[in-house]
């Protein structure tokens, strides 16, 4: 039974294996094996001699040329004599292998004909010669390839002496030959399915005599086949036991024959290559193990997944992914900007931009100031302004300004790359999910979330599945009757109007607040309290908190399907956040303009101040040492870059705080109140009004995305942002995991996580784009401040590239670069890119269309086939009737035999088909192939029947075999 299954599943190419051939293969296997390990064999002889001497039982019959054939008998005898010895555990594996081989040989001996034995003897002779010839080579090879087998040999010699209980031995004998021979035959049949038995015989001789190129090629093929099997075995739908057995077989096979491949000098190299390959595989596996061990929070997410289903878990997976990205961004900025500056740049207090100004010194260490990222925090590596414009710093000659610029560009480029790559991968995995033709089937077979491991969630899931079925049924029965379409329309328009009002209101509010804060800033912040200073951030956070709730209320007016409602909700929140962010940025731009105006004034004052300084003390004497003024006293510009960075940092901080506080109040306090006040309250709090909160996946994801957008926007001016964000994500991972497990309840409407993943990714991409726009705009269009930052003194920030090109690269490089960047070249290049995109897009469209057409074709073909089959079955039934009438007069015994064979072959065919189809997509050509290859398979297993016809109609039926038409049509119909 297992044998049939295995053969059937292994190849649907063609399997022409009957019993006799099986044995041939195993014979071939045994002998080639011995050939390939000449050294081992010799050792075996030595062992044999030793044993014989010890036992005093030397038989002339076992002359050296006959030893291969008789080895098995000998060993079996030995075993029966010496089963008193204890077994050794380490030898267990090898023992089994050995036993199997013995059994193989025995089986072979029993069943192979005498001619074969003769051939074999001849072969062994040639083998011996060959052995002696290639002694040296093989010894060397043994060293390289057969390390393992060398290790195995001592175990084997011992094993020959020590025995098991005969009963067990017998059992193994009965069991093992089957498996070995079947796997042997399977591999052989794969590689040599075309050759007939004679050819195989010859080939076997050839292998034993000398490995001709063709045989080598075949052997190589077989080995490759096995290797492929080893790598893909985990994808086979077999039970583990079988997988293990086949794996071991294949590994042994590969181990044995790999060394035999390659010839002459190439052999050594080949062996070495194989060895390295093995090492490499092992290394890869270890690396893989290490990598999965490095993925954090796996268990936490798993727990959440089992409690809340896949949608809530998808948020946490997204969070973790985000964490990974930020880790890289942090590594870039920290390793290439912050650390070099801190270690190799000029120390704090060495120049004005690195010193707290005199008037701020008093309050520079206050907590409130530091919390606002003023004071010492402002004049540190955390912000743009601290960096010096010195071209190269430290003994490494680290190009600081260049590095700063490239890291800024690199973070954005990396983010783009990662997001787009992830999107593409997701799109691949999702497959064609747009097909709606399987609505009910999908509902039936994929709606249960196997991740659910919590009774409450399971209840919700059951309920939601039931309602979704009922909805679908209702929809199917009648196109939903809209009771009052005008009212619904009116309500929807009203809802959208309200939402627009909300958006406009929030936008204006932010603009108003930002303008007001600028006024405050001009007048000096010292006169105002905490609220005035943090007004902007607080207003933004509060809007972000309450507007979504408002939208939720408004969306109840619309009466959409929950899924559509969710999309609307997401879209609105997205618009809100985006609007807020852009209002904030526009206000910030205004602030930048103001600062730059201020800077101009400071610049003028600066020259006056300098002139005063020199005029007052030393009348222009260039030789006199320059006056040393403490850097804290030097007047300085406002440094708009640092201001922008500070704004973003504050925004992030306040955003984080509001998130955590809402989490604590909205979830934790609420849950505590509901839980403990429930006993003394007039209605049921747990199931009534406040209840516990649900985890809001979409809101949280959006929050995360916008947070990331702010990081991208501000990271150029505040290198500390990725670090801050990393901290925030880390904390929120733990905090939210805890909160979700302790105070949230599973969602009532369980949404599937599918598809939304790429939806989130798309939003992330949009945000990424939108957030890099302002950053790029500021970099390109504003000149940097004159007295702070790595680009001070330059006209534009990107001039640093040109400077590097001019000074650090040879002249020709700069020339080439300038040629390459001239518009005459850039424009055609852009055009080419556009063309390429257009071309690719149109081809993908064509592919899609072709795909659809193929699908249609497949469907129609299937239907046609079905019709044909039905016709054929009808015809066959008629013929069968006639045949039976005719055959009834004939002998009954013959037909009995036929029936038996028929049923067994049918069984085999069924197995073959079933196993052959799994593990791959159904492709039209493949399925056709499988169909067409089927009849020959079933026919060759039984020798008494003539081959069945390949055609679909049952025309090839013979009156002498009455069952055939029926069987044929049966297999076709499947």
């Amino acid at each position: 039974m297992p044998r049939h299954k295995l053969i059937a599943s292994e190849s649907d190419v063609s399997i022409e294996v009957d019993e006799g051939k099986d044995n041939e293969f195993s014979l071939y296997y045994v002998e080639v094996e011995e050939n390939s390990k000449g050294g081992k064999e010799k050792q075996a002889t030595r062992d044999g001699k030793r044993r014989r001497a010890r036992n005093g039982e030397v038989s002339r019959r076992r002359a050296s040329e006959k030893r291969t054939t008789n080895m098995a008998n000998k060993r079996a005898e030995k075993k029966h004599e010496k089963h008193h010895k204890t077994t050794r555990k380490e030898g267990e594996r090898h023992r089994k292998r050995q036993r199997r081989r013995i059994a193989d040989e025995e089986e072979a001996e029993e069943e192979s004909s005498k001619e074969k034995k003769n051939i074999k003897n001849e072969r062994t002779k040639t083998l011996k010669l060959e052995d002696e010839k290639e002694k040296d080579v093989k010894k060397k090879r043994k060293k390289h390839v057969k390390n393992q087998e060398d290790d195995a040999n001592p175990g084997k010699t011992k094993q020959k002496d020590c025995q098991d209980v005969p009963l067990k031995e017998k059992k193994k004998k009965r069991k093992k030959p089957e498996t070995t021979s079947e796997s042997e035959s399977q591999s052989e049949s794969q590689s040599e399915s075309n050759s007939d038995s004679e050819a195989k015989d010859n080939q076997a001789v050839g292998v034993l005599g000398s490995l001709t190129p063709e045989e080598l090629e075949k052997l190589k093929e077989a080995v490759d086949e096995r290797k492929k099997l080893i790598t893909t075995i985990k994808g086979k739908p077999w039970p583990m036991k079988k997988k293990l057995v086949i794996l071991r077989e294949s590994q042994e096979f590969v181990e044995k024959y790999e060394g035999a491949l390659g010839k002459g000098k190439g052999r050594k190299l080949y062996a070495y290559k194989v060895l390295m390959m093995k090492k490499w595989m092992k290394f890869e596996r270890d690396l893989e193990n290490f990598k999965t061990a490095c993925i954090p929070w796996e268990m936490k997410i798993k727990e959440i997944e089992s409690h809340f289903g896949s949608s809530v878990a998808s948020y946490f997976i997204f969070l973790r992914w985000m964490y990974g990205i930020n880790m890289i961004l942090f590594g870039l900025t920290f390793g290439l900007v912050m650390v070099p500056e801190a270690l190799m740049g000029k120390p704090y207090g060495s120049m004005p931009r690195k010193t707290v100004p005199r008037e701020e010194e008093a309050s520079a260490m206050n907590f409130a100031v530091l919390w606002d990222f003023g004071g010492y925090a402002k004049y540190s590596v955390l912000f743009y302004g601290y960096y010096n414009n010195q071209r190269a710093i430290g003994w490494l000659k680290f190009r600081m300004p260049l590095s700063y610029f490239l890291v800024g560009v690199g973070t954005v480029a990396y983010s783009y790359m990662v997001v787009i790559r992830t999107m593409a991968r997701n799109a691949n995995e999702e497959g064609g999910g747009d097909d709606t033709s399987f609505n009910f089937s999908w509902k039936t077979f994929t709606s249960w979330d196997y991740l659910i491991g919590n009774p409450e969630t399971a209840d919700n899931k059951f309920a939601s599945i039931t309602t979704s079925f009922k909805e679908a049924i209702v929809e199917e029965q009648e196109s939903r009757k809209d009771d009052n379409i005008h009212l619904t329309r009116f309500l929807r328009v009203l809802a959208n109007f309200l939402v627009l009002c909300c958006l406009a209101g929030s936008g204006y509010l932010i603009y108003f607040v930002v303008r007001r804060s600028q006024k405050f800033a001009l007048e000096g912040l010292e006169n105002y309290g905490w609220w005035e200073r943090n007004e902007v951030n607080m207003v933004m956070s509060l809007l972000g908190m309450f507007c979504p709730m408002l939208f939720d209320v408004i969306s109840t007016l619309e009466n959409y399907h929950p899924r559509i409602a969710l999309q609307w909700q997401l879209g609105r929140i997205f618009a809100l956040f985006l609007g807020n962010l852009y209002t904030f940025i526009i206000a910030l731009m205004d602030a930048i303009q103001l600062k730059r105006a201020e800077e101009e004034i400071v610049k003028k004052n600066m020259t006056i101040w300098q002139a005063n300084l020199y005029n007052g003390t030393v009348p222009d004497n260039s030789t006199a040492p320059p006056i040393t003024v403490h850097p804290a006293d030097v007047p300085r510009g406002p440094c708009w870059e640092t201001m922008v960075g500070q704004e973003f940092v504050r925004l992030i901080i306040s955003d984080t705080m509001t998130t955590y506080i809402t989490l604590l109040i909205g979830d934790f306090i609420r849950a505590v109140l509901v839980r403990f006040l429930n006993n003394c309250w007039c209605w049921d709090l747990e199931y009534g009004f406040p209840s516990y909160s649900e985890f809001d996946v979409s809101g949280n994801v959006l929050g995360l995305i916008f947070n990331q957008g702010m990081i991208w926007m501000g990271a150029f001016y505040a290198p500390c942002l990725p670090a801050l964000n990393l901290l925030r994500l880390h904390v929120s991972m733990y905090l939210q995991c805890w909160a979700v497990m302790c105070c949230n309840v599973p969602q009532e409407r369980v949404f599937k996580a599918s598809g939304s993943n790429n939806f989130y990714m798309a939003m992330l991409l949009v945000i990424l784009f939108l957030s890099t726009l302002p950053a790029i705009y500021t970099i390109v269009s504003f000149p940097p401040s004159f007295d702070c930052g790595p680009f001070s003194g330059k006209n534009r920030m990107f001039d640093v590239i040109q400077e590097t090109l001019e000074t650090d690269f040879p002249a020709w490089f700069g020339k080439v670069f300038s040629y390459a960047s001239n518009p005459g070249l850039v424009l055609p290049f852009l055009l080419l890119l556009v063309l390429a995109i257009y071309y690719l897009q149109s081809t993908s469209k064509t592919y899609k269309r072709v795909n659809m057409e193929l699908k249609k074709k497949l469907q129609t073909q299937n239907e046609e086939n079905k019709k044909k089959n039905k016709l054929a079955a009808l015809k066959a039934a008629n013929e069968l009737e006639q045949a039976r009438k005719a055959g009834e007069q004939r002998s009954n015994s013959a037909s009995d035999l036929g029936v038996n064979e028929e049923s067994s072959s049918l069984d085999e065919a069924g197995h073959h088909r079933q196993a052959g189809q799994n593990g791959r997509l159904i492709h039209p050509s493949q399925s056709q192939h499988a169909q067409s290859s089927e009849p020959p398979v079933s026919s060759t297993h039984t020798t008494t029947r003539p081959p069945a016809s390949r055609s679909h109609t049952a025309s090839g039926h013979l009156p002498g075999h009455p069952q055939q038409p029926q069987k044929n049509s049966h297999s076709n119909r499947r």
Partner: protein
Amino acid sequence: MGNKQTIFTSQQLDAYQDCTYFTRKEILRLFHRYRDLAPQLVPLDYKNQPEVRLPYELIGSMPELKDNPFRQRIAEVFSEDGEGNMTLDDFLDMFSVLSEMAPRDLKAYYAFKIYDFNNDDFICKSDLEKTLNKLTRNELTEDEVRMVCEKVMDEADLDNDGRLSLEDFQHMIVRAPDFLSTFHIRI
């Protein structure tokens, strides 16, 4: 990574890694999960592959499975004896197929077996009815169930023989947008 474990030989572990979608650590974790189901039955030494089988009652009570309406079918499909009693090999096999890494086709094959309640290699109407009743806890009326069955057959039965073959099933399931995300168990 500590090499202190004494449950398996390293060859065994390698073989398991080749045969499943798990890493070494995960295999050990799974073993411990398996053992925790019945510490008195499962030895801590699997080097000589003891014949241990845990009854279905224990397997079905795992938190990963106990709320699954198809838990009995899952256990039956993956167990060697077809009754839901599992050896460690079966256990590993099951979670390997249900793991995230397993390819769509393999999952589809086993999903088919799971939904094929009467083991006749076809999903026929009775199988579908059973599936639906398990999915909805018998909340649908008979008419509704019948209608859904008809619709499913309509949609997925390409050769119109009134039952779903493996090909039909695969054809349908590989296009399902959330088959992969829902047909897996994290452990």
